């Protein structure tokens, strides 16, 4: 066997050994992000606070105006979703070469279109097509 072939074989052996190591070192080469005890505890503390505030606002009826309360609890919910994404799901621009973030952004856009689009269209459908609408009210006297 020539010197070149031996080098190549040695490379394969080393590469194989490296892959074996990576498996035992829990595949950090995969780019899959991990948390530490500290980040998990920070995320947990934040989510406890962000859960307690909306429940307290509604159960203790802190604010008399329901619209203000609705906006506050929605803000808490969105903040907590972000906390979970960052501290528990380990979202960042680096994991999996940025593809998880791309997929998440795409999903958020489609989710917003589905939610906001449905609510907007159906709201207008309700207000414009329901019986008792002003157009129909002016029409009724003409119909015997």
């Amino acid at each position, binding site marked *: 066997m020539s010197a070149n072939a031996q080098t190549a074989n040695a490379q394969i052996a080393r590469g194989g050994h490296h892959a074996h190591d990576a498996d035992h070192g829990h595949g950090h080469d995969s780019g899959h992000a991990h948390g530490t005890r500290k980040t998990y505890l920070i995320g947990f503390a934040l989510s406890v606070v962000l859960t307690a505030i909306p429940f307290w606002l*509604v159960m203790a009826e802190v604010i008399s105006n329901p619209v203000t309360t609705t906006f506050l609890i929605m803000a808490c919910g969105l903040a907590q979703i972000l906390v979970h994404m960052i501290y528990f799901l380990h979202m960042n621009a680096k994991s999996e070469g940025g593809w998880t973030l791309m997929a998440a952004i795409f999903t958020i856009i489609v989710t917003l279109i589905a939610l906001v689009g449905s609510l907007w269209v159906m709201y207008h459908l309700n207000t414009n097509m329901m019986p008792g609408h002003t157009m129909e009210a002016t029409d009724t006297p003409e119909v015997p």
Partner: protein
Amino acid sequence: MSTNVTTASGADAPSFYDLEPHEHAAHGSTHLGFWLYLMSDCLIFASLFAIYGVVGGNYAAGPGPQDLFDLRLVAVSTAALLLSSITYGFAVLDMNEGNQRGTLLWLSLTGLLGAAFMGLTLYEFYHLIHESAVPQRSAFLSAFFVLVGTHALHVFFGIVWLVVLLVQISQRGLVPANRIRVDCLSMFWHFLDVIWIGVFTVVYLMGMLR
């Protein structure tokens, strides 16, 4: 033979096969693929939330959220699910340190908290059906049962997966395949917690404000 190897590894010659093994292929694609599955699952929940948002106010002269929901119960089940998130986090940390006993312990605790959440949801459903607040009663109740039921079904399958994983880890140990499974279930479990934030905010808390 010598020339073959030289041309294959040479920079200017076309290379038809790779001598370097790709150690990231199996791990990376599994995690990314599972993440893409979760994102598609997210779209299912988005459409269910949209349905609830559109017809959630149509009670058909039946009971509304204020007649039916018990926020103390929801607060307890939310606490169970939130605690199960941190216990799962500790299971993953113990797994990364190679501590099999700790992993099994934290995973079991996560499963118990998930089971407590499931029990509370089933109790609520039983209570609602007992008060004849069934899905057929109104569009609001149909949308409620489908949205909360789909989430509960996800938690149920998460618990089944977790029990299977407990058996697999106790039989085979923390082998690479089991580590990938624990990582994927971790994503699934935290994802369910994210969906639950939307459920308790939109369905329960905003329902009580109507």
